[in-house]
């Protein structure tokens, strides 16, 4: 009698765990921030004539991934907005100001995935909520699996890259940089270390 109750409870909690994490076999990874094997970059058109590249130097995140059940994969990344770096002191100051990121008011940007659909070609679509400049919007990233395997130091690593295009206006950034610069491309390249 007692064992049946215990078994039921155990299977219930297992089912809950399964439901919550997507899969009990999913591995958890932490983005290798310390080794800087990850980057978040963007490019935005300059006058329509060239690309201006910038990046965020400070961010962290975790993801879970299960090769047998890729659809259960999840990722969450938090970006320290003041770490924006376009290799130009006054421009960075301007990007940090309330014309753009308003970092004193919105010190964090966030991405949390809601779904992950993997194709057979190593490409995938990652849907999630991006919070930027205090505005949360759903975005879809085009993902490419880059690789995974043992590293030479006793760990296990897995890498992805992804990109999406967002409009500044959608996130409440009203500064007008001209018609060619209303949108920007966001790139993420990351390597996670299995926990």
């Amino acid at each position: 009698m007692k064992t049946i109750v215990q078994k039921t409870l155990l299977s219930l909690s297992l089912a809950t765990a399964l439901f919550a994490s997507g899969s009990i076999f999913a591995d958890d990874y932490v983005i290798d921030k310390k080794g800087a094997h990850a980057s978040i970059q963007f490019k935005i058109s300059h006058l329509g004539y060239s690309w201006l590249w910038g990046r965020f130097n400070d961010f962290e995140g975790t993801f879970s991934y299960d090769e047998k059940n890729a659809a259960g994969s999840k990722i969450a990344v938090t970006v320290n907005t003041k770490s924006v770096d376009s290799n130009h002191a006054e421009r960075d100051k301007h990007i940090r100001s309330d014309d753009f990121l308003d970092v004193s008011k919105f010190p964090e940007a966030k991405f949390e995935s809601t779904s992950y659909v993997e194709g057979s070609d190593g490409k995938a679509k990652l849907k999630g909520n991006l919070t930027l400049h205090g505005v949360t919007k759903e975005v879809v990233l085009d993902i490419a699996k880059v690789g995974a395997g043992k590293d030479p130091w006793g760990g296990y690593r897995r890498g992805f890259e992804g990109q999406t295009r967002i409009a500044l206006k959608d996130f409440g950034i009203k500064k007008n940089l001209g018609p060619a610069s209303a949108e920007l491309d966001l790139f993420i390249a990351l390597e996670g270390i299995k926990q």
Partner: protein
Amino acid sequence: MLKNTNESFGLVSKSLHWSMAIILTGLFVVGLYMTGLDYYDSLYHTLPWWHKSFGLLTVLLLLIRFAWKLSNAEPEALKTHKKWEISLANITQKLFYFLILLIGISGYFISTAKGKGIEFFTLFEVPAITAELEEERADLIGGAHELMAILLAVFVVLHVLGALKHHFLDKDETLKRMTINKH
């Protein structure tokens, strides 16, 4: 003629005074104006460039002014000046030097926050002394630069009012000593 005496300002002191007066006024007006320019304005890049070069020039003139002040006689205050006027003038002068120096230094750090130097006209580049400033510090310095400039402008207005008071109300030599009169 060139040097100060106990009674009068020499040509060098006068030139330093008036050239800095003109440049600082220009820097203040341009500084306020250029920070509000649209990205597509034709002066968006030009005005900050001139602002920086003239800003550096101002610091240079200030250093020359210090050196000149130390190596020269200090004209005595006019006999008709009251004690409080003299001490107010002394405080104001020190405040001017202090503010101009701090505004210059903060301006320098705004532009060199990423470790890159500032072009001095087209002549040479003044190098950065810091590798990279923390973002909060850079933003704080930017705010301080503007605030101190506004404070300086307020004191300049008082300074001008004082000079006009001496000239038109007291009808003394104060303003003339810094302009045409007596070499």
